[in-house]
């Protein structure tokens, strides 16, 4: 062996040893703008922590949900960090599937997290997931169409005003529809909107003893209002419209109003994507004078599966991605308007952010007015504003969503749909042992 081979061998051995020490974190995440931005900016984290490498698995929301649920339920250990929503966190934490996050770093400032968001991610006073971005829902409306119709949108409209305005704005000959709402069946599609709306009408999914409540007058009122409004002032084929379909209708100028996720605000005001970018106004989700608004609450959050071998490194990353410095980093590189919204009080107190994001105040007010532990007018036994945080809800919510979507399409009457929903829910809840 000559000297050169010896040196080469030693060098590669050292290099290999160095590689072997680096810890690789596999992060499962959803495909949305804020998450993609985080991937691009992750160099900042790896340069500060050269001993940690990151590997990303980006998937569409529903695929991701199935994928990570399979993994965590079987303790597959494929992911060190999972992006999950407010629906999963309480269920998974109770199952003992998540690690409490207590090593997020000294300067993390957990009290700065928005109380509504934090409470949805906290179980028994322990934080089980750190919010990466939070969202609620609100009214987005076309200022020009309102002006033309001689209407003024209040900051906090009522459902009656919304319905009246929607009918006045509608001009079906010119393909302008007063209101676009979700109709596509799914627990995260039409049922997110309808459950949140029902909260403001005084309805609830279950009473304190888990008895389904679709046979109550509040649900009937909600559904009759929704179906009639959509028939009078909604776009054709609304029963197959979800977030994306409505976003596309709104951006091409076909909707007078759209009530949906606050995250849509940055899309509809983006001149590169939207033909109505400079004509959009925002208002709080409507109410019925009962003390609850029809807005939801969701937070995409980062969590560490229990039994993770790399929990320290994973928490270090979560501390970076959901910390205050990350918001500053995004602002520096991409501008304040692109900072992930809805997680920290300090962001909303920042004058630069207020200036750059015209929808900031509305987002904050919407989030603050949602209470996941007390979502309806009447008391409920569950957590969750636009969902019920029990494992059975995904299946049940989608089944009820299909019935309500059919009612919107005119395939059955509201009464038939509610009777069917009541039957579905009673059967499912009896089977799952909540009621006898």
């Amino acid at each position: 062996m000559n000297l050169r081979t010896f040196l080469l061998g030693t060098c590669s051995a050292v290099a290999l040893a160095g590689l072997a020490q680096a810890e690789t974190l596999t992060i499962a995440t959803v495909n949305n703008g804020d998450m993609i931005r985080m991937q691009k900016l992750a160099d900042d984290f790896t340069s500060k922590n050269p001993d940690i490498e990151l590997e990303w698995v980006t998937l569409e929301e529903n695929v991701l949900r199935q994928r990570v649920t399979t993994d965590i339920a079987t303790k597959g250990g494929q992911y060190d960090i999972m992006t999950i929503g407010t629906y999963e966190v309480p269920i998974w934490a109770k199952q003992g599937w998540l690690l409490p996050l207590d090593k997020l770093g000294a300067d993390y400032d957990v009290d700065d997290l928005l109380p509504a968001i934090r409470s949805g991610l906290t179980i028994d006073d322990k934080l089980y997931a750190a919010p990466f971005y939070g969202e609620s829902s609100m009214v987005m409306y076309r200022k020009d169409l309102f002006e033309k119709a001689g209407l003024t949108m209040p900051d906090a409209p009522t459902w009656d005003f919304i319905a009246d305005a929607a009918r006045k704005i509608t001009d079906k000959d010119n393909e302008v529809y007063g209101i676009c709402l979700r109709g596509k069946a799914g627990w995260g599609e039409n049922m997110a909107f309808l459950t949140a709306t029902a909260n403001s009408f005084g309805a609830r999914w279950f009473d304190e003893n888990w008895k389904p409540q679709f046979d109550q007058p509040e649900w009937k009122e909600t559904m009759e209002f929704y179906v009639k409004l959509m028939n009078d002032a909604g776009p054709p084929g609304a029963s197959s419209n979800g977030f994306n379909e409505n976003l596309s209708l709104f951006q091409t100028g076909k909707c007078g109003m759209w009530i949906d996720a606050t995250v849509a605000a940055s899309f509809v005001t983006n001149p590169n994507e939207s033909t109505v970018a400079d004509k959009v106004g925002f208002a709080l989700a409507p109410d019925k004078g009962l003390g609850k608004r029809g807005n939801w609450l969701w937070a995409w959050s980062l969590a560490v599966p229990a039994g993770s071998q790399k929990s320290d490194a994973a928490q270090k990353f979560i501390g970076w991605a959901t910390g205050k410095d990350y918001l500053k980093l995004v602002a520096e590189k991409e501008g304040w308007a692109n900072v992930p919204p809805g997680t920290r009080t300090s962001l909303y107190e920042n004058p630069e952010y207020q200036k750059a994001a015209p929808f900031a105040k509305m987002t904050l007010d919407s989030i603050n007015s949602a209470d996941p532990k007390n979502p309806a007018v009447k008391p409920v036994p569950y957590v969750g504003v636009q969902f019920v945080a029990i494992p059975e809800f995904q299946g049940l919510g989608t089944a009820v969503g299909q019935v309500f979507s059919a009612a919107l399409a005119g395939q059955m009457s509201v009464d038939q749909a509610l009777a069917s929903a009541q039957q579905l829910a009673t059967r499912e809840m009896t089977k799952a042992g909540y009621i006898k």
Partner: protein
Amino acid sequence: MARNVSTQRKLLTTVVAWTIAILIFFPILWTFLTSFKTEAQAIASPPVFLFFDWTTENYFEVQSRSDYFKHFMNSVVVSFGSTLLGLVIAIPSAWAMAFAPTKRTKDVLMWMLSTKMMPPVGVLVPMYLIFRNTGLLDTRTGLVIVLTLINLPIIIWMLYTYFKEIPGEILEAARMDGASLAKEIVYVLTPMAIPGIASTLLLNIILAWNEAFWTLNLSAAKAAPLTAFIASYSSPEGLFYAKLSAASTMAIAPILILGWFSQKQLVRGLTFGAVK
């Protein structure tokens, strides 16, 4: 004797054939066109067909965000690997069933096919546990094995039908000349069944390339093929249709080109034995 076909009739069949072909091809064409639009043009109403500012921005964006080549290599290894492994198992099995049938051969064939009738999600959790315990999660080897297993019934069925067309006397003659069983299969049967084997091979590569349930569920970061690459561009909250189209075009292009070059083989193989 050839039938007399009137010009009118010829014209009609041509028009019908073209219409059907365009209808089938249209979604792919639309995906291709959309991949060159901006996100705003992608959702424009009424839709823009050809007259827009063509841009390759989406392709650059997709390439800068994800490692296409890694996913591509995974797809190649997984689809070719599983098909070749499948053929190695299926050729002897199909030989046995075609040339040495027993009373139960038909039942065995049906039983194999019946495994395709179960919805895959029904066995997701047991499969996931087996993969976890054997360390096969997120490995190409694991995906090759699972795709071999799910495509095996189809491979065996196709080969069985092709082999049935080959006269057993030829194999008998080889045996008379002293060929061993292995030699009989490798040197006599296989060359005669080449068109059938080729079309089975191609069809299964396409099936394995497009398989999106197991490849998504059993892979994470390392072994993820192009199906995962596409899934990372789909989003229920956000209109990224142009980027999604660019990713889809990139994902289907290799298999489309392969299919194009081998279409003669494919068609010949698929119609093999139909007229005798």
